[in-house]
């Protein structure tokens, strides 16, 4: 965007919101919104507490574990659906249902199965991230040109080598799915922990909101936002490195 000939970075929009937030906070109109500057100073408070460190550790662990399982399982499931027609007919509807289903409603069920601890949160992250990864992988596999498959076949590639080629050829779509999975996984970890509510950032959210520490509450949300966005940006960077594939495949 340009403004009177000056190029304005898109992040500038955030500044405007911060100012509006500050003004609303100053007027003390809504109790839920302390001034933005107060949130920023609470940020330091939050980060330095020992409970934050342990919450961050446990959150990070369950997030990465859930995401890793989701990527492995989702890519495998997507490959299966993309390559085996009967499997696709059997599974496609279910994967689509899970993709759009209100998964938060399932968390209590998972909780009953896996208990009030980290396994439940890992499972929630997995449930949130896996379906979009599977569907994007499926789309990627189906877009691999038949001649590339014929090529590897005709030069005598083994089954394993052929699968590797399909995986590499579908990489742009797989990475797009992983990027979306990364973002959905953050939702999963927060929702999982909120519902379990005795571990990780979920416990912190409960602590802050029950004690009306709204500045701390918002600071924690800011941290999670930044976390999700920077992870997505990292995968996006990776994606742009393989983008040329898509054009030169056809």
């Amino acid at each position: 965007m340009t403004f009177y000939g000056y190029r304005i970075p898109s992040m500038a929009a955030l500044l405007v919101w911060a100012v509006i937030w500050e003004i609303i906070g100053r007027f003390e109109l809504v109790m839920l919104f302390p001034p933005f500057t107060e949130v920023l100073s609470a940020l330091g408070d939050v980060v330095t507490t020992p409970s934050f460190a342990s919450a961050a550790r446990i959150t990070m662990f369950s997030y990465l574990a859930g995401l890793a399982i989701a990527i492995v399982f989702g890519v495998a499931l997507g490959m299966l659906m993309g390559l085996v027609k009967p499997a696709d007919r059997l599974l496609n509807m279910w994967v689509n249902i899970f993709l759009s289903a209100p998964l938060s409603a399932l968390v209590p069920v998972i909780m009953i199965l896996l208990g009030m601890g980290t396994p439940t949160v890992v499972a929630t992250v997995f449930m949130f991230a896996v379906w979009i990864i599977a569907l994007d992988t499926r789309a990627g596999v189906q877009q691999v040109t038949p001649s590339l498959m014929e090529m590897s076949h005709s030069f005598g590639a083994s089954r394993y080598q052929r699968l590797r080629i399909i995986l590499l050829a579908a990489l742009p779509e797989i990475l797009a799915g992983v990027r979306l999975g990364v973002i959905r996984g953050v939702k999963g970890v927060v929702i999982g922990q909120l519902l379990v509510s005795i571990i990780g950032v979920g416990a912190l959210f409960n602590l802050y909101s029950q004690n009306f520490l709204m500045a701390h509450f918002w600071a924690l949300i800011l941290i999670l936002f930044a976390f999700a966005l920077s992870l997505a940006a990292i995968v996006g960077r990776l994606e742009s490195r393989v983008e040329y594939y898509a054009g030169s495949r056809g």
Partner: protein
Amino acid sequence: MTMAKSLSAASASRADSRDAVIQVSGLHKVYGNSVTALENIDLSFMRGQLTSLLGPSGCGKTTLLKIIAGLLEPTSGEVLVNGKPVRGPGPERAFVFQDFALMPWATVLRNAAFGLEVRGTPKAEREDRARHYIKEVGLAGFEDKYPHELSGGMRQRVGLARALAVNADVLLMDEPFSAVDEQTRRKFQEDLIRLREVEKKTFILVTHSIEEAVYLSDRIVLLSPRPGRVAEIIEPDIDRNVDPDMIRREPAYLDLIDDIWRGLRHYVE
């Protein structure tokens, strides 16, 4: 259609069977339950010759090539390569694809060495061979480029280098020049004539271009469409040891193009 050197399919296959690399006999291919792509094909392909499969779209020429390659199964009939029946792709045949079929994530060198890589040839050896053939097809200096950095013609040269590097007896080329612009195609055709002299391989070329078939081939198999049958076999009597541009001006070359066009015309109308 009358022609001095035209032979019937059956007699040609009988007479030449002594030095045939590939023998196709009684081949039928039916898609689904109704569409007959190929009907009763009997053909032999001579060692060291370049044979074109020429015909209008729908004549099953690519289907025939892919059956020879082992990529498709015939409904009935048999293909023999060096006397052994085809059960799938094999090291004595290498395929050149219409859309190049290069791996976009791999360099020219790695693409050209792909056939050797999947066979487990040691890295140093396969890269040496790949480099040799990259040079042979005129791409020296582009070894570390990626396919998206090359023009269509250059990509097909990589496809050709990949097929040459595995040292197969037969190169199967599926409309290799159709996705390439006209000038590049001409240059490519001239290079192919030179390459044949050096490599002494058997080529089977699928094309829909009459000029291309006459320009390049020792033998042209004309296929008629729906169902695909061998309509005629022609052996152009053209001396290719002259300047490449001279060939295109030779009366024999021009007359034969005219003859074939007259024969094919009614399939198009």
